[in-house]
């Protein structure tokens, strides 16, 4: 570490003494009432560092301020039966489900939409990196990834850039990491032209005793930051990327994006799992959006509530980073852990072995305050709950769109008069469909993913679900899928979302597995538009009711709002991931018929 750079440090004392100093809260994405609320909580103006923390943590992306009131239904509509196998529910990095024999599985879907439009390769790559860190922070070894992609029209000039970049980025990161890509989705529709969706799902397994939570407990325990160095990349990304839409009229804004380093992440995985297996970790949190702001405030508020760190201990990649920048940096491939003092030497031994850099930032306290010092001077002194959990909550107005009736009346039959009827016409129509961008083979994409690494994959593309073995002695394993037909959701958000759930659920069932849990990634337009908010609210109501009916719990997910271009929303797109369990994966059923099944009967089931 070089000498501490000299800044005009905005200390807590300074803030108390200069109440009228003007602050860039609007530029940081805060609303006036939110800024006022922060002043009220603190009883003074925030310091620059505190303002940075609140602004990123209170962003839509991190706080779920517009979605929280609706997401509650996933918890409220849960029956006793649905809770049976749930070891960890919504609220942690990812939910955990019991698989029996002491095994547990965790999985979650995340979006990386805006970054993937700006820089498709790195945006998609870091999407895989982020979701995989969520999984390892629960104590699990990642055993599979899936991805759901929504792109603009296939023949639009910009689609090529995003498609090839995103697929190469996903493939590069996942393959280098050694996590098999076992499935996903690829849909082209002009609705996503200026706002593609890149959603990634990761699945991990662990033994029950290895489950870890993001808690900073145990006064005197040490706070460890390890992995990549903290750089000036993605600063402000958490709030800026997720709350501003792109506008064609001006040159696309290009905030600094983050470059992914899958090699470092692979070492991070191995080192972290070795820390877990030696029982050295008290609490752990991955660093994603909002970086150190998020990790410190979440760990502290989930634990005994106090933490004291020295920010100059953070190892930076760039010289001269300000405290605010360090707090907001979204540099990838970093983790924060809480370590009992007696384990410090062993932890250092493991991190050194894997060539993983680390720094000890401070310790857990019982003060109920998160205190961050810069060279011994206090620059942040907050109740961590107010940063991480008690942010603003909006019950935004919603209203059925004026266009909904007309949309529903505009049926296929009303639009098309010359339906194919002769054999030749039907044949031509069938071939047209099979050759269309959304139905044709996706092999050129799926062939770019290593589906076999780890040696336990028994089904992947082009089958309906990916299947991997968990226990090599019993052949117990899991199946995963991601699905959504957004056109159905657009037509009728309540039932359309249930159809997405049903499709994903069916894919698991037809593979031969028992569906056990759901993770969703809810991609919508602006929540400030009441008609969009209606789509969102109806979707969640539909999903929560559907899950109750099917008796599978939602154990986690992600919300991505403000997906719009020039004020026009994408189709409401709730991508649904379902996880299934197999007693014996060798009994999985492939989709499609093979030559050796010649003569077998074909049945069409259902209504």
């Amino acid at each position, binding site marked *: 570490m070089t000498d501490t750079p000299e800044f005009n440090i905005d200390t807590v004392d300074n803030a108390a003494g200069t109440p009228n100093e003007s602050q860039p809260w609007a530029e940081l994405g805060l609303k006036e009432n939110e800024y006022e609320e922060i002043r009220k909580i603190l009883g003074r103006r925030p310091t620059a560092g505190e303002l940075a923390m609140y602004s990123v943590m209170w962003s839509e992306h991190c706080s779920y301020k517009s979605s929280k009131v609706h997401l509650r239904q996933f918890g409220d509509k849960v029956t006793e039966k649905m809770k049976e196998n749930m070891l960890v529910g919504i609220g942690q990095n990812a939910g955990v489900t019991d698989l029996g024999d002491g095994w547990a599985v965790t999985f979650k879907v995340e979006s990386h939409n805006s970054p993937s439009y*700006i*820089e498709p*390769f*790195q945006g998609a790559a870091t999407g895989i990196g982020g979701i995989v860190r969520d999984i390892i922070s629960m104590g699990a070894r990642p055993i599979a990834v899936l991805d759901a992609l929504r792109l603009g029209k296939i023949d639009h000039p910009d689609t090529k850039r995003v498609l090839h970049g995103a697929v190469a980025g996903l493939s590069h990161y996942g393959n280098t990491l050694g996590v098999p890509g076992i499935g996903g989705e690829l849909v082209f529709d002009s609705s996503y032209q200026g706002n593609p969706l890149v959603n990634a799902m990761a699945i991990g397994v662990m033994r029950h005793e290895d489950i870890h939570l993001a808690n900073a407990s145990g006064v005197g325990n040490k706070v460890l930051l390890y992995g*990549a160095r903290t*750089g*000036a*990349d993605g600063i402000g990304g958490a709030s800026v990327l997720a709350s501003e839409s792109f506008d064609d009229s001006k040159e696309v804004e*290009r905030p*600094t*994006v*983050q*470059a*992914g*380093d*899958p*090699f*470092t992440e692979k070492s991070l995985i191995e080192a972290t799992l070795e820390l877990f297996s030696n029982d050295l970790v008290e609490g752990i949190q991955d660093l994603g959006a909002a970086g150190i702001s998020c990790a410190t405030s979440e760990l502290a508020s989930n634990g005994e509530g106090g933490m004291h760190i020295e920010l100059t201990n953070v190892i930076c*990649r*760039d010289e001269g980073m300000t405290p605010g920048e360090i707090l907001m940096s979204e*540099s*990838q491939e970093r983790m924060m852990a809480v370590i009992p003092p007696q384990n410090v030497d062993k932890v250092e031994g493991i991190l050194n072995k894997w*060539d993983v850099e680390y720094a000890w930032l401070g310790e857990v306290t019982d003060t109920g305050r998160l205190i961050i010092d810069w060279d011994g001077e206090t620059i942040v002194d907050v109740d961590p709950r107010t940063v991480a959990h008690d942010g603003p909550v909006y019950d935004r107005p919603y209203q059925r769109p004026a266009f909904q009736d007309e949309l529903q009346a505009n049926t296929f039959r009303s639009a098309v008069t010359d339906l194919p009827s002769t054999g030749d016409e039907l044949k031509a129509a069938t071939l047209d469909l099979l050759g269309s961008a959304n139905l044709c083979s996706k092999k050129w994409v799926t062939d770019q993913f290593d589906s076999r690494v780890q040696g336990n994959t028994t089904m992947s593309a082009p089958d309906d679900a990916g299947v991997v073995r968990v226990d090599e002695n019993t052949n117990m394993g899991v199946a995963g899928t991601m699905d959504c037909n957004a056109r159905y959701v657009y037509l009728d958000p309540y039932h359309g979302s249930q159809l997405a759930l049903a499709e994903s659920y069916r894919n698991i069932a037809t593979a031969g597995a028992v569906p056990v849990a759901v993770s969703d990634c809810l991609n919508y337009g602006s929540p400030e538009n009441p008609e969009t908010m209606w789509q969102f609210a109806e979707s969640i109501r539909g999903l929560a009711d559907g899950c109750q009916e099917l008796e599978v719990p939602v154990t986690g997910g992600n919300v991505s709002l403000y997906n719009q271009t020039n004020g026009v929303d994408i189709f409401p797109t709730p991508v649904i991931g379902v996880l299934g369990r197999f007693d014996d994966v060798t009994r999985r059923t492939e989709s499609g018929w093979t030559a050796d099944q010649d003569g077998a009967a074909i049945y069409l089931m259902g209504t």
Partner: protein
Amino acid sequence: MSRIVVEVMPKPEILDPLGKAINNALPDFGFDAFTDVRQGKRFELTVDGDITDAVLAQAKEAAEKVFANTVVENVINVYVADDQAGVA
């Protein structure tokens, strides 16, 4: 036949994982003189005939639009190769 060289480097503020990994491995090979390594790209464009101002201008434009991804990389140089470099 002439050649234009386009040089592209990762932006200084963007993490360069390749350079970092190379830098960490160099001591294994017995090289200890370097404190940092960054890996960029070097393109050689072949032009039939002479390089006019228009061709060079095209190369400069292509450098920004195709050869570099200016979100994460900078074009640091576009120049006409002397024979020496051209042949190599």
